[in-house]
């Protein structure tokens, strides 16, 4: 190896590297740096022994502490459920909405739990704020199809609507046009009649013609005044709040083909505590009776 020149100022040998006349001195590494390096090496050896480290062909070295991230998460989840269970258990004893509303702490917990459960399970159909959409009722308003008391709501959520569950809420309006029960003309007149019920613009002659048909065919479920019936799940036709829509074509389609919307049952999928929390949440959205 060639002799390196000695720097005249410091008396230290140069490495022989030079950039634009600036030469690098061959000083030893700073001591603190070297010791930090050794400490890191020692630390990593200890780490290999204690913690999962080296990948192998079928698995990896597990380390004597037996640490896994999965176990840590499981433990944290268990602790979380543990911390929640006290409030959740309180929901077992809730029978009326007042039980929750008179207990501000429980109400706060229930609303938070209900909101998150709603987002996970219901928002797909009912919208993130329960605002609904064509075919999916708005849960914020006071226009209930199957009833808006705490008990009604809880029952609807538990068993669903036309869900196939034996306890499910069930009622079907016929496909009057498709099944040939009513003629096209009768249906056309009934569309005008339904619009008039909600105070919308309608052809008065058609409304008059349809009055009898409504009385005979429709009043059984929707009532003579068209205000509907919670027990039968027949919507109120007089409040201009529509499940499927208030346009002529939509109402015509409803009468011609029937609808029979389905809301799934949640019994078995959610615990009764969770369903209670959801019922409180839906009730509190503003329309609860």
């Amino acid at each position: 190896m060639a002799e390196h020149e000695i720097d005249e100022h410091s008396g230290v040998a140069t490495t022989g590297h030079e950039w634009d006349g600036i030469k690098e001195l061959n000083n030893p590494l700073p001591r603190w740096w070297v010791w930090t390096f050794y400490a890191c090496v020692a630390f990593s050896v200890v780490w290999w022994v204690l913690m999962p480290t080296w990948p192998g062909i079928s698995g990896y070295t597990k380390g004597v502490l037996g640490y896994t991230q999965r176990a840590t998460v499981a433990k944290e989840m268990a602790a979380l459920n543990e911390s929640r269970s006290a409030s959740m258990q309180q929901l077992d004893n809730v029978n009326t909405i007042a039980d929750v509303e008179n207990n501000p702490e429980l109400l706060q917990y229930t609303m938070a739990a209900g909101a998150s459960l709603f987002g996970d399970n219901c928002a797909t159909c009912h919208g993130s704020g329960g605002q609904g959409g064509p075919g999916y009722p708005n849960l914020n308003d006071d226009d209930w199809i199957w009833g808006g008391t705490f008990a009604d709501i809880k029952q609807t959520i538990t068993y669903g609507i036309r869900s196939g569950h034996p306890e499910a809420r069930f009622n079907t309006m016929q496909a009057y046009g498709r099944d040939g029960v009513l003629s096209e003309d009768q249906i056309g007149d009934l569309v005008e009649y339904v619009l008039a019920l909600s105070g919308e613009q309608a052809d008065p002659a058609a409304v008059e013609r349809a009055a009898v048909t409504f009385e005979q065919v429709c009043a059984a479920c929707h009532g003579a005044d068209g205000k509907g019936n919670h027990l039968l799940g027949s919507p109120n036709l007089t409040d201009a709040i529509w499940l499927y829509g208030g346009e002529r074509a939509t109402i015509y389609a409803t009468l011609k083909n029937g609808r029979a919307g389905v809301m799934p049952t949640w019994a078995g999928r959610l615990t009764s505590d969770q369903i209670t929390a959801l019922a409180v949440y839906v009730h509190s959205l503003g329309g609860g009776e």
Partner: protein
Amino acid sequence: MSEATVKSRTEAQMSGGDVEKHDVAPVNSAAKRQLYKARVQIYPKLVHGFYRHLKWIVLAITLGVYYLLPWIRWPRGVGEPSQAVLVDFPGRRFYFFFIEIWPDELYYVTGLLIIAALGLFLATSLFGRVWCGYTCPQTVWTDLYIAVERLVEGDRNKRLKLAKDPWTASKISKKVTKHALWLIIAAATGGAWVFYFHDAPTIFPQIFLGEAPLSAYLFIGILTLTTYTFAGSMREQICTYMCPWPRIQAALVDAETLQVTYKTDRGEPRGPHKKGESWDGRGDCIDCNACVAACPMGIDIRDGAQLECINCALCIDACDDIMKKVGRPSRLIGYDTDKNIARRAAGEKPKVQLFRSRTVLYAVVLALVTGLMTWSLLTRATMEVNVIRDRTPPFVVLSDGSIRNGYTIKIVNKATEARDLILEVSGAPDLTVSAIGEAFEGAKATITAAPDGVRSLRIFVTTAPNRSLHATFPLTVTLRDPVTGETADSPTTFLTERR
């Protein structure tokens, strides 16, 4: 390499008269400044006198405040911390006696920093680096550490000798004692710091039982380490190399600033003086180096104002002592201005010019900012209301044709007692409001707000039953304290089918 190895052992070289010349070199003076030079240890000599006294008093007060402040109790009511000064991170509050600052009021802290900066500007332009010389923690703790060092190892000469001595049992025991005492002080410093962030009487035993939070131990560790190294070994290097303040201060002092000054007009020409010799034709400085030996920064004040000088005034005491011995007037080194040196040289009377455009400016701005801060602190709102509109759905049509909007209202009560506040919603004549658990009369209700907290309330605002009555209109939520008359409001909108 310590300066002791360079110099001979003859510390007691006579410079004339009764005064011995100190064998000491101003190791950090400009003349000796050199890049890449290893640090030379400084062994400051103890002095006695007015400024040393003053500094002991300042040291006692500043350390006293630092260690005792967190222990002062200040009852604030149930559920509130009863510590006068507390930074409560989990509760997100800052308490200072009667003041309680919320996170959204952090500008008070900014204001406090501005006041501190302006105060420092003013003090510096009047009296030079008084902050550095007397009250800076670096100075206070270094002073304390040097006092401990002196107690264990003796004054300058003994320490110099000890440094050269071989490692005997006595030397080892002295060093161990000194470092142990230093570490105790350092740990106490870090320990006291934590008291500002937790209830002091609660965390004090917890620290020893190993029950305090990890962050507490972390901060005790960090502050122990910094105190021990900054005050124990790094000392003057912190001021000279790490602190930005010396650089800024050069811009704040001027020729009329009172600074620790060697009065060249009186001292020069300097030289040794034998007892009985005449003082005619020479200066009062007998070049005894007492000022250099006393200097904790390792400089010679006679070189004039310099970056390293923290204006600790210990050289004043050192020199006064000598002047008394040789029978000359004191304050050859003293608080003086560059202008006065020039004035005396020109045969004029020296004077102190405290009112100068810059000091007046600093004082006025300081008074303004302090006044503004105090005013805003005294008149700050004790309550607040914020409104968040429901977004999904933006509005709901009810079966009777009325339109309903939902809002989440945040009611902030900064008072330390619960308050009954009147909440009112206005924007249209026919509104009714409802909320779970609250009894509204029309659009008005009395809401109880818990002390020192934020309450969230979901309200429904409903119009009269006619959905075509209203187009979207502005809505105001008002909060009023019927006792104090204080009000707070927040604007929002009421959305309907028509924009």
